[in-house]
């Protein structure tokens, strides 16, 4: 990529995001569930869980086989909109270690096309601990760029300096809000300003409520905010407004 292209990319119009600061760095949260880092033109997406359908099918549970296609289409949409210089897939990109091998040819081609003209980084996850086969991209366990560190699983320490600037996935955060006797549950970003957990991007992925014990190992109890995904905007709430499942 030439210096001109990268310069132009930096100033091209990107979709409207909800801007926040993580460890002092300005990033944008998008209602599709992706994270956008305008200064570096990096798009970050977590927990694609591609080939989850076929993974379950091997075990006799025939989930609809459209998950990979749906996820890739959605991914294509955001990549199109943001045209990032680099894409980071923040782990569990495939539902199991053989997922990339099972990827049908058409989807492999689609994914490869998305990778053209940009850098692609696969961060390994607990579901896919090895590099994907027959696909471009660099595989890392974690990567630090400037003030931000990208890894799949968050470090289980609250308020430590080691976790400042951490951006991760793995937990599939979801939040529930109650109103007029009804409750609404959505996938969400969750952050305390120093570290951030992304929602799961994949089509057949569920969510773990942020009031669950698991999050108390990451954030100080009730000291975080969530941004719930809506149809074309995000809805911010503080932890105290949320209810459990």
């Amino acid at each position, binding site marked *: 990529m030439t210096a001109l292209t990268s310069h132009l990319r930096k100033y091209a119009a990107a979709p409207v995001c909800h801007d926040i600061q993580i460890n002092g760095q300005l990033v944008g949260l998008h209602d599709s569930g992706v994270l956008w880092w305008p200064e570096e033109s990096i798009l970050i997406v977590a927990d694609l869980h591609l080939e989850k*359908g*076929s993974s*379950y*099918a*091997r*075990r*006799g*549970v*025939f*989930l*609809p*086989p*459209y*998950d990979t*296609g*749906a996820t890739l289409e959605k991914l294509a949409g955001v990549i199109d909109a943001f045209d990032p210089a680099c894409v980071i897939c923040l782990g569990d990109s495939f539902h199991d270690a053989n997922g990339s091998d099972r990827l*049908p040819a058409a989807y492999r081609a689609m994914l490869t096309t998305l990778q053209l003209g940009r850098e692609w980084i696969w961060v390994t996850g607990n579901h896919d601990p090895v590099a994907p086969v027959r696909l471009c991209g660099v595989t890392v366990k974690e990567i630090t760029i400037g003030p931000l560190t990208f890894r799949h699983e968050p470090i289980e320490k609250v308020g430590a300096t080691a976790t400042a600037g951490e951006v991760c996935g793995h937990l599939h955060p979801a939040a529930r*809000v*109650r*109103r*007029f*006797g*009804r*409750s*609404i549950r*959505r996938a969400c970003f969750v952050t305390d300003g120093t570290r951030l957990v992304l929602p799961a991007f994949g*089509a*057949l*992925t*569920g969510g773990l409520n942020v009031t669950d*014990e698991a999050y108390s190992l990451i954030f100080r109890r009730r000291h975080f905010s969530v941004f*719930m995904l*809506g*149809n074309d905007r995000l*809805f*911010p*709430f*503080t932890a105290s*407004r949320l*209810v*459990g*499942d």
Partner: protein
Amino acid sequence: MDVQLLPNKFSSWFASRGWAPRPHQLQLIDHLSQGHSTLLIAPTGAGKTLAGFLPSLVELEARGKRKPGAAGNGIHTLYISPLKALAVDIARNLETPVDEMGLAVRLETRTGDTPSHKRQRQKLNPPDILLTTPEQIALLLSDPASARLFASLKTVILDELHALVTSKRGDLLALGLARLRRLAPNLRTIGLSATVAEPDDLRAYLVEQPDPEHRALSHMVQVAGGAQPDISILDSEERVPWSGHSSRYAIADIYRLIKAHNVSLLFVNTRSQAEMVFQELWRINEDTLPIALHHGSLDVGQRRKVEAAMASGVLKAVVATSSLDMGLDWGDIDLVINIGAPKGASRLAQRIGRANHRMDEPSRAVLIPSNRFEVLECQAALAASKRGDQDTPPLRKGALDVLAQHLLGLACADPLDALATFDEIRSSETYRHLDWETFERVLDFAATGGYALKSYDQYAKLRKGKDGLWRISHPKIAQQYRLNVGTIVEAPMLKVRLVRSRAAGRRAPVGRGGRVLGEMEEYFLEQMSPGDTFLFGGEVVRFEGIRENEAYVSRTTSDNPMIPSYMGGKFPLSTYLAEGVRTMLATPESWKELPGQVRDWLEIQQEKSVLPAKDGLLVETFPRANKHYMVCYPFEGRLAHQTLGMLLTKRLERLGARPLGFVANDYALSVWALGDLSQLFSSGRIPLDGLFEEDILGDDLDAWLAESSLLKRTFRSCAVIAGLIERRHPGLEKSGRQVTVSSDLIYDVLRAHEPDHILLQATWNDAAEGLLDISRLGELLARIRGRITHTGLPHVSPLAVPILLEIGKEPVYGEAMDTLLADAAEELLMEAME
């Protein structure tokens, strides 16, 4: 009738008891001996059960004692009942005559509670008579040993048939019967049933249907009803409430009735009503009368205790839901109290049959309406009862998810021939309409999930061999199947477990200990926050949280539950009763039979507004507190009204009326909006005929269904029954977080990518008839076409008061989820700005 049909042993036994064999009992023996399947329709107390078994007992006595290892040592008679408890109870009762006559008959039960070693032994060394449930039949048929086990089957007795055929369990049983007929071609069936509207439906259910054009029927024996029941409607001194389902106003009256009788059975429509009535009675139970509670969500142990206490005559009254509707005859009930409208004439008749099972004496029943509209409904039910009319629903069309489960089960037992199996399935009345294409799609679903995208062929559960037969691809598939079969989902239930309270500020995770109090619907528990209190098992409990598949609650000293359990009826009123109510409303002359307060109410309605016509639809509009209300009175039941409400709201939005929400109950529907509805309707800006146009059931319905949580729940149920989502999967179950895929996610993906998938079709079929009552709604719209009356009023009419009072008690719909979220978010902003 030739009493010689009865061998001497039997007639002596009858004589020793002081009984004479009844005509219908002898007729049954006669029919069966000639090889005819027969339906026996009899009210309770007519000795139905003994009648069902006599033919088998007579045959077995004639056969004599079996020599071990002799041919034909399989099961002779199957008795199938919808309730486990019933099967166990009947077995116990049957042992008496068998022992006393010294018959060479071995009888055993087989239910979900039967230990596995006993079940194993039953397969190897089967009894003569096996008393069991539909699920067990499905399990047995999935075993390769089934051919041997059932080869010498002679008779299948289906008890409480009227109750079985109304649900998916009836579908599963119909398929099982079709298979049993293949395994034992000379099989005869006996159906035991209460009175129904269409006996021919049940007669057709009982026999093979070889001819697609013509309906084959079993023989029938009908026992004339006993004495006319003595039913009255409570005419209370207290004010009958305008709305709601609480009947709290009548508690003192109810208590007086209980005191004045020997043993009373109090029927309510929902579990939460049972809890409430039970609690209220105990509040005023100064004489400490033994009053018990019985409903399906209570722990099994507790239910058995109540049943035993009933049987031994220790109780004065039992408050129960339909869990007690059928089955066991306990002697001395002399009063049935039906709290709330009975919802159906047949349902009422069956409940009344519970009282005083001596046929020749009239049963006594009192109806307690819980609001003014229910008074009308009770009146209609009373009239129906006097005429002896029935309103049982017509026979269902077989469900596709049940078929999928069944096909997999058959393949587990034996290689499956698709064509032969198709014929076999169509030979059952419930599935006679099945076409080949649908059958293939269901088979495809069972094999690989039935997707247009053929990515799963390599993982197929069923494979077609070179001989054209389908076989399971791996033995573990049979294992999976058996773990999940027959657990026909009603609503996903969570166990409710008692734990120590978190309230005292304990940080420790909620303990695992504590006993299970019972079960409750998941969607109800999902709504709650820790600290909320609600009624369960007769006491007020505090919700602590949900962990895996259990809800934890703790004891409280609180008297008043915070969360009003959904008090609405589970069943909408039947079309039959709805018509009765509409007729009553439209005929002022008939009002003299109504209680004074209800009569006054209707008279004022006549004065201030108009009465709804019998056919046609009344629409009233009026302004109130900066909003404009529309109230209409379709009387088609809550479910149909909820669907209609959703659709009307969408339409009104498109027409610029700015609707905000709606509420519905069994009788009426109210929509409120910012636009002036009176003005819009009377000026013709919004033509009412257009608003209620039948095409509302097309695109609008489709769009709404995408968001409907009701439909998602139905889908989930279908997915579990069909075997898409496993309930228990060996190896995948983990302690700690449950490894399950949310059916909602699957639903969304399917709707987006394969909207005509067989499971969505199954879901739609369920919804159309059941949950959303689409067909009933369609009939309504056709009926009112051109007959809509609009009247604009200056304020709320008397008839509209009940439905308006429901706002705040019943769930309110119509606001988009996103709007709610935005609202909630903005509230925070406002707070922050102040």
